[in-house]
């Protein structure tokens, strides 16, 4: 190939985006060109071609960033704590801006970071596949906007020479994540490591961040190899070779575990002993959750409460929630590179260091 591929990682300043950029830079010698677009510069790396500060809700900034790129990997989103219109503005319209810019600048591939929750709303889910439909009613606005944006991305596949793919990771965690392991760390610091809900008999998927990043890179390469090989003779190649373009893929560590075993592991690594000794039966949890829900509804006109113990969360924790990733394995050639336990070990090290720093301060 005469020219190097140039990747744009949108949201590359964030937890996942940063790992994608780093793994891309380590993926080959010489590495491809990598540019990041994010609201704020969160880190600097001399290997990056550029770190563009810009807002994906601004079509002009997005267009400028996409110019001259081979692949765009779109990981940016607002996750929690914003008013409803912001979710639509960033997660949905922002994605539309990126699609438009890709088409305008003849970008060959777009990889979109979706979420496994676009098909999940608290039901008991075992070995779910991509054939499952989107939720009629989504868990929250975040998931609703992620599902809508994913549909935009997948519908844009093939239009104007752009190949698109959507990845749906489940339960991303890793050193410094803002959600899964941070939530557990915060809970532990608050002393909430003593009780659990249910009897720990249901399976749950977690995914180490490097595996999710790895899947993004695989998906991008898959789209590129297809785009470059689509000479007229090969266009009628047999359908048996499944294509990634226009498809959504669940991405997990392929190691569902009983829900409370992961918190138990992290708490133990953080030095907490005898954790999760108080078991709240599922039925009691559901009743307590309902009481909390009612309380939230009653005080809603006066004060907005965001409790962690809700009926919905009790339901999620005490239901199975894991996915079958056969499609990602066969089509993308995806295999988790970091086993669950190793991912947890690295995550625990991070939080131990955080803990040490905070007690020293």
């Amino acid at each position: 190939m005469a020219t190097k591929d140039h990747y744009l990682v949108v949201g590359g300043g964030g937890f996942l985006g940063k790992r994608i950029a780093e793994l891309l830079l380590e993926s080959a010698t010489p590495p491809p060109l990598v540019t990041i677009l994010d609201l704020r510069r969160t880190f600097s790396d001399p290997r990056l071609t550029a770190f563009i500060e810009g807002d994906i809700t601004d079509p002009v900034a997005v267009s400028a960033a996409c110019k001259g790129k081979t692949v765009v990997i779109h990981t940016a989103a607002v996750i929690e704590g914003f008013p409803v219109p912001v979710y639509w503005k960033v997660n949905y319209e922002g994605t539309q801006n990126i699609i438009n810019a890709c088409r305008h600048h003849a970008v060959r591939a777009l990889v979109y970071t979706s979420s496994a929750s676009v098909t999940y709303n608290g039901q008991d889910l075992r070995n779910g596949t991509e054939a499952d439909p989107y939720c009629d009613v989504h868990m929250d606005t975040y998931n609703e906007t992620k599902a809508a944006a994913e549909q935009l991305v997948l519908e844009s596949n093939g239009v104007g020479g752009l190949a698109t793919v959507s990845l749906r990771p489940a339960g991303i965690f890793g050193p410094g994540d803002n959600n899964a392991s941070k939530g557990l760390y915060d809970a532990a610091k608050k002393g909430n490591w003593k009780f659990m809900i249910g009897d720990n008999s249901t399976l749950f998927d977690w995914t180490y961040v490097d595996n999710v990043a790895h899947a993004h890179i695989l998906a991008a390469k898959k789209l590129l190899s297809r785009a470059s090989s689509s000479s007229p003779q090969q266009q009628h190649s047999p359908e048996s070779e499944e294509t990634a373009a226009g498809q959504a893929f669940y991405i997990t560590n392929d190691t569902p575990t009983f829900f409370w075993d992961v918190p138990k592991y992290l708490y133990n690594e953080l030095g907490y002993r005898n954790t999760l000794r108080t078991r709240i039966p599922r039925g009691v949890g559901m009743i307590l959750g309902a009481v909390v829900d009612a309380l939230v509804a009653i005080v809603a006109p006066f004060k907005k409460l965001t409790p962690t113990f809700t009926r919905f969360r009790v339901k999620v924790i005490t239901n199975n929630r894991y996915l079958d990733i056969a499609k990602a394995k066969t089509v993308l050639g995806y295999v988790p590179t970091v086993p669950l336990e190793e991912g947890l070990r690295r995550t625990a090290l991070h939080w131990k260091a955080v803990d040490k720093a905070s007690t020293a301060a």
Partner: protein
Amino acid sequence: MSASALLASAAHPTELYALFRYLLTPAPSASSLSKQAAHRKSAVAPTANRARCYHFLNLTSRSFSRVIAALDDELRHPVCIFYLVLRALDTVEDDMTIDIARKTLLLKDFHNKIYQRGWTFKESGEKEKDRQLLQEFDVVIEEFLGLDEKYQKVIADITKRMGAGMTQYLAAPTPENPHFIEIQTTASYNVYTHYVAGLVGIGLTDLFAASRLEVPQLASPANIELANEMGQFLQKVNILKDFLEDLQEGRVFWPKDVWAKYVPEGRSVDALAELEHQDAALACLNELVVDALKLVPSCLNYMALLHNPTVFQFCAIPQMMAIATLDHFYNSPSVFRTTGTKIRRGLAVKLMLASKDMHSVKRKYEAYALSINRKNADAVGKNDKDKSFMKVAVACADIVKWIHMHDDAKRTPQAAVSGLKFDWVVMIGLVVIATALAMGMLPTVL
């Protein structure tokens, strides 16, 4: 069955029920079994040889003879003879009074001996409990030669492979290494369990397929690997359970590359049996439990392939006993303190009665996977030497995941553990009724 079995199950009414049901079905006598076996060839009268074989079967393992008795006529006799031949081979292997050169020759040649009418072996050590079988082995040979040729072929083939395999593990104890057998690596542990137990699974599978009670494809290469792992699982559970007993007899089956990580510098495996090293011993045990648990999905896969109800039950009963045993001694110091650890007789009988179909087998496996996982979670942070927590958790999760994938219908997750809780419900009920009766709460009719 003894009164002690009933007493041990006194707090488990469902086991008591199982024990009584078991007691009410008569145990097969040697003569009734041999008659059943001869039934198909009605021209041939049950011979004394045949009766003697079932007598030996009863002596070697009473519960196993019951399981064999339940097999279809077509398979009963081939399996009985297969079992006796392997038992004889095993007795030779175990016998520490025979010198290595002679033992090696005999083990390698055993597959020829079963074709030699009149051959017997009278030099077994006094301690060998099955030495009588070898002293009268001509009886087994007669019956072997009376089997259909397709069965003879399978039995001879497995005997040849197993005998040759066993010779690789014989050692003469020295002052530096006082063990008759010592397994160096995990790889070697896997090969050893393949020879002594995996091959049994393979041979049985070949017999099932040859009998046409199961489809011939049961013996396909992929399924043969499952059969191998089925046998390995049983053997590994026994090896873990019998650590102390084997050690006392100079045999160490636990792989050295694992236990060496847990014994103090310069010490040998016997350190694990000392109270002061209990934490290390348990950590070592649990690491090997993970290795065994990983075989369970293959065992379930194999059982799901079986169609014939008697063959299914024949395979499922030992598997159920093994998973229950594993649950019993997982993370348990008793492995290093007492010999002859066994699950309660009542529980064993209950499991036998539950081994009739895949559905109840799946329910039991799910309950045991959850039970082991719960013990695992409870043990976190209590033993710094134990690094197996996540590995046990994942292995248990894999078992439940397998069951989900092969479930007939979706159930509420809570139903899974009800089997283990049921005993308490029944017990409380019984106590309430008993109290009511004792207090004279029922109206006097007379």
